[in-house]
C-alpha cells in the first residue's frame, strides 16, 4: 500500500502547473507534482511516486537502488502495473 516507485521526470508543462511526464521502467505516464510545490522537480530529476503523486525528490543512485529493492521485494510487476494504470490505462 505504501509502495513508492522511483520515476524519472521527462517533461514538464509550463501551462499546466503540477503536471509532469515521467518514465518508470519504460512506461511513460503523467503524474501530479503538487506535493513538491515548494521545490518543484526539473526534467531529468528523479522522484518517488505514490498513487500518481510525486512524494519526494531523490538522487539517481537512490532511484536505481529503490528499483532494485522493488525487484527484490517481488513488487516490480505491481509497480509497473500501478504506473501503467495511471490515466485509466491510456497510452
Amino acid at each position, binding site marked *: 500500500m*505504501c509502495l*513508492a516507485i522511483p520515476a524519472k521526470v521527462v517533461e514538464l508543462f509550463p501551462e499546466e502547473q503540477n503536471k509532469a511526464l515521467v518514465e518508470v521502467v519504460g512506461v511513460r505516464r503523467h503524474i501530479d507534482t503538487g506535493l513538491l510545490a515548494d521545490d518543484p522537480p526539473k526534467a531529468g530529476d528523479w522522484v518517488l511516486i505514490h*498513487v*500518481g*503523486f510525486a512524494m519526494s525528490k531523490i538522487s539517481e543512485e537512490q532511484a536505481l537502488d529503490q528499483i532494485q529493492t522493488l525487484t*527484490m521485494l517481488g513488487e516490480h510487476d505491481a509497480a509497473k502495473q*500501478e504506473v501503467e*494504470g495511471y490515466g*485509466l490505462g491510456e497510452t
Partner: protein
Amino acid sequence: MKFVDEFREPGVIGKAAEEIRRLADPAKHYRFMEVCGGHTHAIYRFGLKDLLPSNIELVHGPGCPVCVLPMGRIDDGLSMAQDPNVIFTAFGDMMRVPGTHGSPLEHKARGMDIRIVYSPTDALKLAQKNPDRHVMFFAIGFETTAPSTALILMRAKELGLSNFSVFCNHVTIIPAIRAILDSPDMRIHAFVGPGHVSTVIGCRPYEWIAKNEGKPIVISGFEPVDVLQSIVMILRQLKAGEAKVENQYTRVVPWEGSKAALRAMAEVFELRPYFEWRGMGFISQSALKIRDGYAQWDSEQRFQIPGVRVTDPKAAQCGEVLKGVLKPAQCKLFGKECTPEKPVGALMVSSEGSCAAYYSYEHRKASALTSIGAPV
C-alpha cells in the same frame, strides 16, 4: 538463510547481522515492533527473521490500511454503490476485502459499477468524463496517501465539480502507536518506524514515544540492510540506556517532513473525535474527516450512509497479534478458518498484514518441509 544470496550486498548484510548478535544481550528477550506493513512484507520476503538471534522478536504493527479498516466501513461504501448512478472507485488493494455481503469485486460481478483506479487523479478524471454520473472515491491509507486525496479535493473544489465525492477512511499512525503503548498487555521494547509515512509527517511526531514512553524508535527504509541497520541502531540505544528518535532512512525522509503535503492535509482534513480500527477497537483522534468547507465533496455528507458496525469475529485474535501478545500462528483460526483466500480477521486481508505475510512465507515453507519429512 536461503534468501541471503539474493541480497545486493551480502557482505554488508552479514556485517549488520553480526553487529546485531554482538549488541544483543543473550540474557534479555527483545520485542521490536515494525509499524509499517511494508516492513512486515520485506521482513518475510527476505527471511530477515532467520538472520536475527532467537532472543530478538519482531512484532508486526498496525501499519496496513486495508487490514485495519472495519468491515462496516466497506459495507457503508458499498451501500453508496447500490445507486445505479454511482461509479464506485477504489485502489486495487480494496477490491478483495470482504464486506458482510462480499467484496467490492463480488459486488462488481453482481452488476454494480465498481472500478479500480491507481491514482485518485483518475477518479476525478472519471467524474469529468461522466458528468451525468456521480463518481465516489473510496479513500484509504495513512499519511503517505492522504495528501494526494487532499489535493484532489482541492482540485474538485477549484473546478466546481459537482458529481465527485470522497468517502474518507484515512487514518493516522501516531494514535495507533499510542493505543498499542497504552494497552495493558503491551510488550514492545522499541519501534522500527514507518518510512514513507515519515516522508510526510517527518520525525518530530514520534518524539513522545522516546521522551514519555522511554522507547527507542528508528525510522527505517525498506531494503534488508535498512531494516537490519535500524535494529542495530535500536540495540545501540538500548545498550546505552537511551531512548531517541533516529532516522535511518535519511536518503528519503526529511526530519521536518513535507510542508506542502502537511499544508494540503490541514486545508482539507480535520481529526475525527474517534474512529474504529479492526482488531483494535475505537481509537481517539485517529482518523481524518473532510472539513466543512469541502462538505460538497464528502460522500458521508452527500449520501445517506447506514453507519454499519460489524463486530470483529470473536474467535479471531487480531488484537492480540497486533499488540505482540500472540504470534500469527498462535491464533485459533490461523490457517484453518482464516486464510488469505478466505480471510476472517483483519490481518489476513492484505499481503502487508502480518498474518497474510506469515502465512505466505512461513506457513507454506513449513508445510513444504513437513510434506518432505524434513524437520521444521
